[in-house]
């Protein structure tokens, strides 16, 4: 909300010489801000309404449960990604970390649930920390550092699974497996965990000093530093957080699948980035919200689900639609953003 008021404040000063009707200018600016914030949500609701009218099987408990579960893992990854993108960075390593987290969790599950959860968190968090240090302290480009981490993490994964030929299994009756497979009040445990994490994430980004630093670093790094925001520490924190989220998502996914599948996660970084961008967060940093990313994830999964429902369509269409959708969203966002800047 702060961003919005700032924008209004700025426009009030600049708009007066040329626009005769400031009230109207304010209204159209508010509209474009609303579209940017809630466009994804409106689209999601519309898509779901159309889907439930068109397919009897869409709005059934089973189908919704499936969608919620398959969204949960991507959503946790997108949560960490949102923090990174709001600082103006990017994290390409999350797909590999997701897979690595799953394998480590499955391997660790033989020593109990605590190990199964802490091991992936520790390793993926550490890799995220190294990313953050290279980016913030050594000042290397986020794109390339996390690209290297993506390759490196995949390499580590191959190294601990005999070049991908060993799949560690999780004992079906263990408490850890229940974290993935169990349900509470009819909703899967991973979904609950995801919801809790998103509430926490939203509070942290919106209501804490750290969250303000994240926005400040993304808005203008130098200005942020001058205002006293700990730029380097904030950056290191967001990449660590992203690593932790990816590792946790991988661990939960392994619990759900009761095995550490080695081939997961390729292309997941791009899915997560798409979801965050569709949710209204700007890749240039300084603007974005947690709830948007959740909507973005759900929208991607609804598209996927609808295309699966149309049995005759090949699943390849899903990629065409997702890609086209992403293009439309970024064009709309750029145009809306430009409009707001001009006003």
């Amino acid at each position, binding site marked *: 909300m702060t961003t919005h008021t700032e924008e209004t404040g700025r426009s009030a000063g600049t708009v007066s010489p040329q626009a005769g009707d400031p009230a109207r200018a304010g209204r159209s600016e508010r509209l474009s801000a609303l579209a940017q914030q809630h466009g994804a949500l409106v689209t999601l609701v519309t898509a779901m309404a159309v889907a439930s009218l068109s397919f009897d099987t869409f709005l059934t408990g089973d189908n919704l449960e499936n969608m919620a579960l398959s969204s949960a893992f991507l959503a946790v990854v997108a949560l960490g990604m949102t923090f990174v993108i709001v600082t103006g960075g990017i994290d390409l390593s999350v797909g590999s970390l997701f897979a690595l987290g799953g394998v480590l969790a499955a391997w660790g599950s033989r020593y109990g649930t605590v190990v199964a959860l802490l091991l992936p968190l520790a390793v993926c968090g550490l890799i995220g920390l190294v990313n953050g240090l290279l980016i913030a302290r050594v000042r290397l480009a986020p794109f*390339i550092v996390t690209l290297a981490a993506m*390759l490196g993490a995949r390499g580590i994964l191959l*190294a601990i699974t005999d070049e991908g030929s060993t799949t560690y299994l999780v004992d079906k009756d263990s408490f850890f497996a229940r974290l993935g497979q169990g349900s509470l009040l009819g909703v899967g445990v991973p979904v609950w965990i995801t919801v809790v994490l998103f509430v926490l994430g939203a509070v942290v980004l919106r209501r804490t000093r750290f969250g303000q630093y994240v926005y400040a670093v993304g808005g203008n790094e130098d200005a942020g530093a001058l205002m006293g925001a700990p730029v380097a520490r904030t950056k290191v924190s967001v990449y660590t957080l992203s690593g932790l989220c990816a590792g946790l998502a991988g661990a939960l996914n392994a619990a759900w699948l009761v095995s550490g599948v080695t081939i997961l996660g390729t292309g997941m970084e791009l899915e997560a980035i798409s979801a965050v961008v569709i949710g209204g967060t700007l890749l240039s940093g300084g603007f974005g919200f947690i709830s948007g990313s959740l909507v973005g994830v759900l929208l991607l999964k609804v598209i996927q689900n609808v295309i699966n429902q149309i049995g005759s369509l090949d699943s*390849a269409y899903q990629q065409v639609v997702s890609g086209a959708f*992403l293009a439309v969203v970024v064009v709309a966002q750029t145009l809306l953003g430009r409009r707001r800047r001009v006003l």
Partner: protein
Amino acid sequence: MTELTLTGASLDRARLLRLFQDYGVYAGVVVLLLFNFAFTPHFVSAENFRTQAVQVAPVLIVALGMALAIGTEGVDLSVGSVMALSTSLLSLYLGYGPWIAALTAVLGGVVVGVANGALIAFVGVQPIVATLALMVAGRGLALVLLPQLKDVRDPGMARLGSGAVLGVPYLVLIAAALALVVAFVVRRTTFGRQVLAIGDSRAAARLAGLPVRRVLVVVYVCGGALAAVAGVLATARLAASDPTSLGTLMELSAITAVVVGGTPLSGGRVRVGGTVAGAVLIQLLTTTLIKHDLPPSWTQIAQAVVIVLAVYAARERGRR
């Protein structure tokens, strides 16, 4: 930093660093070659060199286009999907003869390039997102056109894939010719200057009256066309169209080759020779590890280390 550079010791250090930045990638290639000459059995054979060069050719061709995009401070993530699209189009139109099919495939790459360029230059979308959208959609489109692997049985394509002139495979000749063309364009043409000027500062380039938008579109069109050519060549070599896996992670290999070759991600500088050496270096590194029975996991970790080292070296230049 400024006081430090005045002292003699750090001047030497700066010069060393500059040397490392400019020639490090070539030195790396030489070191790896020497190592293999000495320790790898059966490395020194015409057959082996031919295999290595043929494997490097598609990566190199894609990397040339990537170097131009990175030179304008952009990036093109769609190249792998363009390769897939190109292989699908190629096998769909093969009935009309290999030339028509290859042209259609390249045209497909051009269309993707126009879409990328328009999004980036006219709408103002960041290159990474614009090309990400085309990457996702392009792979999907390739699979819609050709849902599964299909053998390519065409004498023309077979000759392109495995033929050679004086022992040098066509693929390698084409890659070398394209590298020379791109090097010429970057160094000797107005367009090349404009690319570098835009990479240095887009705002300054616009103020200087350069046709920024047109140049950007052309850069991404070149990237798309080159990726499509790489797709055609890869299809010819494999004698099969596989839109599911052809070109996956190609964008990363190409970016790696460009960055390792000393082209800074911040734009304003394109090193074509370095890009060639970068592609060769990654190929040699992989071969060396494989020939010495080290598992693929090592290759990936080694590649990661090389990338970080390369950007670390490039960063010092940016600071000075």
